[in-house]
């Protein structure tokens, strides 16, 4: 491991403001729109016993955090296309440390994105929740993005540069909509809730909701997200070994 490199890489990404618009600005804008629409007058979702505005905050925090993970695909594909990877291959850095640096960058950016969404929700929409519950919701969303960073790495490994963008869009739209991050599943057709249960984004949202509700019923979301993580990590390692053997 090379902590210095990993931290510098994460910091570099965080300073690259332009590429972070979709991670920071879009979720906050959507929070302001949907939070006002569904959460007016402190309306409560009785199914989850949470105020709608809090649910929307968790959704948008999850969406921003997911983007922090998925956008690593762009970083990887871009760096490969530019030839930055070739430069890094002339250093002791191993490919796995390079990939680890992307996961750490995703976690750092996600932490900022989640915090920003929660702050806007509390300050602008006056969402009401205890500090501990906000923290639990944020922590759930934060740790839950690891599989998304892995999906990004997989796209980075497999996609040829001109195919990366459409593949990314499909992945990102699919995970956002089917996972119920944009619009609450309860207002979508019933069959979509069944599809959602296979999506890591659904369970990411669920983990955040449980945190907000102060519930410890987290076994199912953690199991599903861990399963995604294990399968994705295995695929990445396999592909990485194959690439290394070919070089």
């Amino acid at each position, binding site marked *: 491991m*090379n902590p*210095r*490199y990993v931290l*510098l*890489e994460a910091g*570099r990404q965080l300073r*690259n403001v*332009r*590429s972070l618009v979709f991670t920071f600005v879009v979720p906050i804008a959507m929070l302001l729109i949907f939070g006002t629409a569904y959460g007016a007058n402190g309306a409560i979702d009785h199914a989850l016993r949470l105020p709608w505005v809090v649910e929307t905050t968790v959704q948008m925090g999850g969406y921003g955090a997911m983007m922090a993970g998925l956008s690593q695909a762009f970083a990887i594909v*871009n*760096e490969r296309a*530019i*030839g*930055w990877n*070739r*430069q*890094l*291959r*002339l*250093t*002791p*850095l191993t490919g796995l440390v390079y990939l680890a640096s992307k996961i750490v960058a995703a976690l750092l950016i996600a932490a900022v994105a989640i915090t920003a969404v929660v702050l806007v929700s509390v300050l602008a929409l006056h969402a009401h929740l205890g500090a501990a519950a906000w923290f639990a919701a944020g922590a759930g969303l934060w740790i839950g993005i690891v599989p998304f960073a892995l999906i990004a790495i997989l796209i980075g490994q497999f996609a040829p540069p001109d195919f990366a963008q459409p593949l990314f869009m499909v992945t990102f739209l699919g995970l956002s909509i089917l996972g119920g991050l944009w619009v609450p599943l309860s207002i979508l057709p019933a069959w979509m809730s069944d599809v959602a249960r296979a999506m890591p984004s659904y369970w990411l949202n669920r983990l955040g909701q449980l945190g907000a509700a102060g519930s410890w019923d987290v076994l199912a979301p953690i199991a599903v997200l861990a399963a995604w993580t294990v399968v994705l990590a295995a695929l990445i390692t396999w592909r990485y070994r194959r690439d290394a053997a*070919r*070089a």
Partner: protein
Amino acid sequence: MTAAPPIRLTGLVKRFGPLTAVDGVDLTIERGEVVALLGPNGAGKSTSIDLALGLARPSGGTAELFGGAPRDAVVAGRVGAMLQGGALLPTTTVAESVALVAAAHRHPLPVAEALERAGVTAFAKQKVGRLSGGQLQRARFAVAIVSDPELLILDEPTAAMDVEGRRAFWASMRELTGTGRTVVFATHYLEEADASADRVVMMRRGRVVADGTPAEVKAVVAGRTLAFALRRPVDGFDDRLRALPAVQLVDARADRLRIATTDSDAVLRLVLAERADAHDVEVAARTMDDAFLALTTAPAEESR
């Protein structure tokens, strides 16, 4: 033991499908040499460099750096390189780029020192995407030297630079290499090879076709080709020409003779004086390809 040469390529071959990019290269570069790898585009220079650095796997033969696997030399920070298509991230500043690569190395130079040595301090805080062609090459040079390498490999380092930029680049290079570093650079500018290298290796079609001092190479390239036809039989006249010191190559085919020479005036005078039957005389400046040919076939060639 530190006597192993910085670079040793043995019978190196690289094929891409039906194309053989590198076709049996044997090359040893000793410590402290500054070597120009000269050749036209597609000669196999960049592929040879990739193989030497372990970025590509040879189809045949071996590439060694400092007597071991290229990757070991890379990990130890003993080799730095500016590659074709090895670019910096446009949204990152020069200083950040150097700091990132420094962080990846085990014993790097202080970032400020690498910037200083490469002469990029003045624009270190600029984003890479906003640099001029010449500045970008210097920034890449700063990245290449941040591990304080013993061996520097530069693939067309002055591409996209104007004449002034090129001169400044080589001046700062010389400062760096004064300390016994080994440098290999690829170029297709003969003047650059002549001015900055103490050894020139010429490649064509994946092979080393010549290997000598810049003076040797320049002498050949500076020469001319003289061609003429004879009405009567050649009758040993080609051997008479071969014996002249200024003649490097004589090619007699049917009634036509082609002569590679460094003194076309003297040869022409002799031809006209001794052979009244000479006609259709042509004198032409040597092209790079002629030079390669002359160098590889001339018996006087000194190969190392």
